[in-house]
């Protein structure tokens, strides 16, 4: 998936969660991504976040530590 798409999707979720109190928004954003994003999407998310993640809304960056890092699947 393109970096642009990952960024847009994460930011869209953030925009919804930003209406909530900050701590709740962070928790819900993280759990939303944990619940609905397959590991390879989360891997791509972390590639961008680990590179600085300036394109993300602050709430995404704040939630990063609560998002599960995927275990890299090894192809046989």
């Amino acid at each position, binding site marked *: *998936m*393109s970096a642009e*798409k990952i960024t*847009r*999707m994460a930011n*869209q*979720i953030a*925009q*919804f969660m*930003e*209406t*909530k109190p900050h701590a709740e928004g962070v928790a819900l954003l993280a759990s*939303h991504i*944990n*619940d*609905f*994003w*397959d*590991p*390879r*999407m989360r891997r791509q998310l972390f590639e961008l976040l680990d590179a600085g993640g300036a394109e993300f809304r602050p709430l995404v960056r704040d939630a990063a530590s609560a998002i599960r890092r*995927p275990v890299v*699947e*090894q*192809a*046989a």
Partner: protein
Amino acid sequence: MKDFIIPDRDFGTPASKSKTMVTLTIDGFDVTVPEGTSIMRAAAEIGISVPKLCASDNMEAFGSCRLCLVEIEGRNGTPASCTTPVAPGLKVKTQTGKLKDLRRGVMELYISDHPLDCLTCAANGDCELQDMAGAVGLRDVRYEAAPKGEFANHFTVKNTSGEANPQWLPKDNSNPYFAYDPAKCIVCSRCVRACEEVQGTFALTIEGRGFDSRVSFGAKTDDALASDCVSCGACVQACPTATLTEKSVIDIGTPDRSIITTCAYCGVGCSFKAEMRGDELVRMTPYKHGKANRGHSCVKGRFAYGYATHQDRILKPMIRDSIDQPWQEVSWAEAMEFAAAKMKGIQAKYGRNSVGVITSSRCTNEETYLVQKLTRAVFMNNNTDTCARVCHSPTGYGLGQTFGTSAGTQDFDSVEESDVIMVIGANPSAAHPVFASRMKKRLRAGAKLIVVDPRRTETVEGPHYKAAHHLALTPGTNVAVVSAIAHVIVTEKLYDEEFIRTRCDWDEFQDYAEFISTPNHSPEATEILTGVPAEELRKAARLYAGGGNGAIYYGLGVTEHSQGSTTVIGIANLAMLTGNIGRKGVGVNPLRGQNNVQGSCDMGSFPHELPGYRHVKNPEVRAIYEAAWGVTIDPEPGLRIPNMLDAAVEGTFKGLYCQGEDILQSDPDTHHVAAGLAAMECVIVHDLFLNETANYAHVFFPGSSFLEKDGTFTNAERRINMVRKVMAPKQGYADWEVTQLFANAMGAGWNYTHPSQIMEEIAMTTPSFAGVNYEKLETMGSVQWPCNEKAPEGTPLMHIDGFVRGKGKFIRTEYVATDEKTGPRFPLLLTTGRILSQYNVGAQTRRTANVVWHDEDVLEIHPHDAENRGVHEGDFVRLASRSGETTLRATITDKVSPGVVYTTFHHPDTQANVITTDFSDWATNCPEYKVTAVQVSPSNGPSEWQEEYAAQAALSRRILAAE
């Protein structure tokens, strides 16, 4: 003798809803019935059938045929039993010498102007006129039609002098499905009344008076096809003679048995009788006791079943190594071996998660369950999704968050008790016609209608009703409109405080009230975004909040947006604010698109949840399936359809088993879908036809139609209806058997021998289905989930005493404009929808005579926008967005506002989805079909893409027969 079918008993007049009971005597027998019941119906209750021709219990009594006369002790004359209500102590006689003479006389007059060609008549054996002639003992007709035509009659072409008989009218064969033969008409008015009372179209009328009375499709020059007729079949069903007859009955003859089954078109889930002769389907007639449709139907379910035997159907499995090769027909065993080897190879090379499935919302619950089980228990991942992703996934999320279940709250009967009906982003007149008819009946009786839709749809206004408020919003501003309605309700204190205090979380309400009360949510502030006049919106909000029972019905105009889930949450907020939840006549009701989209969601088709909406992360839920299936279930969510395509383009997703869905045509941004499919190494398509997706497939499993298998569908009311096999699968296997063969080729070792065993497994593992089994469905006809120990007979209304999640949850709904914006290059907004006669991608309906109503997709454009661009009615226009371009014909109409254009997506030659973008709902990735910035300009013919596509499709569909 006429005994080929046990007919559904007709009680003559509708049941009375009164609670007061009345006792009277009929032919010496006491009978107790509700006040308001007709004498005819009361007699029928004790098994006495008073002869009748114009009465039918699905419409009001009319009193015109004068056959149902009775005598009442102490009353003068011989009143018609259909129009005379019961009264306490009445003594009624239905059979006396006087009555017999009168009836025989009436019958004699009827027959005097009716052709006696019974032996060659299409209604032979299925004619109420014939039955009544027998019932009244008609033995002689003194007033025979004059053999030389001296007197006028309605049924011979010419008299012997060669002059035209001015009373004679030719047959009207213009409708593809039924014929109107005026010669057979007895002017009972049942067809006219069915069109008015049952369907609500008012296309038929009686023209002229006395002997000149004729049934007419509107004006004298109108034939059935040119009239307002929507071909629902209600008139054909009502006709007691051969005047209105299915052409299939004229061609084949009368059926000899009938089997109750469920329609495979939209989410209303109408029950039908498949009337058969041998294994030939003679006709489909709506089943009177079907709880979703109550004996009504639409043109699709009633008539458009011919696709099941269409010559395009593929009946042999086919394989090929690459998509530029022609198809090779093979045996089932070879196809299975080939497909399993490919999928195993892909998993070995690219990993366990490199393959997945798409379950079908067209197939049965049992089939869907098996397909998701295939990915979870055989492929060992959670890469399963279904077309609900692209329609109602935001419903699942939004209602799950607020109420605790992802389904509608009511049954369809509930609409009979609604006072205010708000329809948001849906056009039931075209897409859910049988529900629309039931809703319009209530509207004609005085309920108020609010429509929120960018277009002035057929639902906005109809015969004898008109929406009190039509909020014609700019596409993409649903959240702003719904929030503005909530703003009015909260700031004008129209909310139901007691309901909120007892049923919802009060703190969350206060937080929400504070949020929504700010002036930026007021209709005055949002008017500039939404285009909805503030005063009109305020009036609509007041009506919904204060007009009595308020029900919301919504469709894909709500969900298919970047903020689809937010709008669903906003709708749930509205219902909770006004206390419109938990009783008849109210509620929040998603109108589901496909026949089993509810069921496919229930059955665990989504990549993050197992059957019954339970997340795969929960170890206790996984444990149930791990025990039942003997495997370890992956706790990570799998890929959703758009994610699968992205992963395919990226190279990590290589194999797909796609059952009964045409993602290439139905999913947005066709170029992207095509690129994804082309990047895969094994695409298995399981379908009736070589659909568009099959152009990119390596394996084709031929599918079976809904007539060829047993199983269940679950409709928008959560109603589980039986689907019954009425003929053997033409390609050899029901779809569940095909999935099982494939799973076993992959090494699964499944051994289901009947779908009832699959349902047993579903019931065993899913709490909301715990009480469901085929035996119960056979006895009850249908059942609405949850069906378990707490509700052994199912649950027609949800959230009666409390929400499933406990307290109803108010959630803030901030409007965020979509990124899809108009600008100088693409100044118009395109929105998409459906038309009555066609269904979804049209794979079925395009293969029926329904194409007479809609043989191509057209672009609706406002006169101002058309004039600016030099576009005339019927011109070819180029429709372009940043995703792609296509061409189609334009039609100029003010149904759409200036700045908005609209089209349907039923035809692959147009492919409206070449235009739509890959933007999607924030929560569920449901695509934003309903808003695309476009430009329209005159064009000379097909776009380059259309020509390339047609060439590729033709190449891809070549088939080499087996040696």
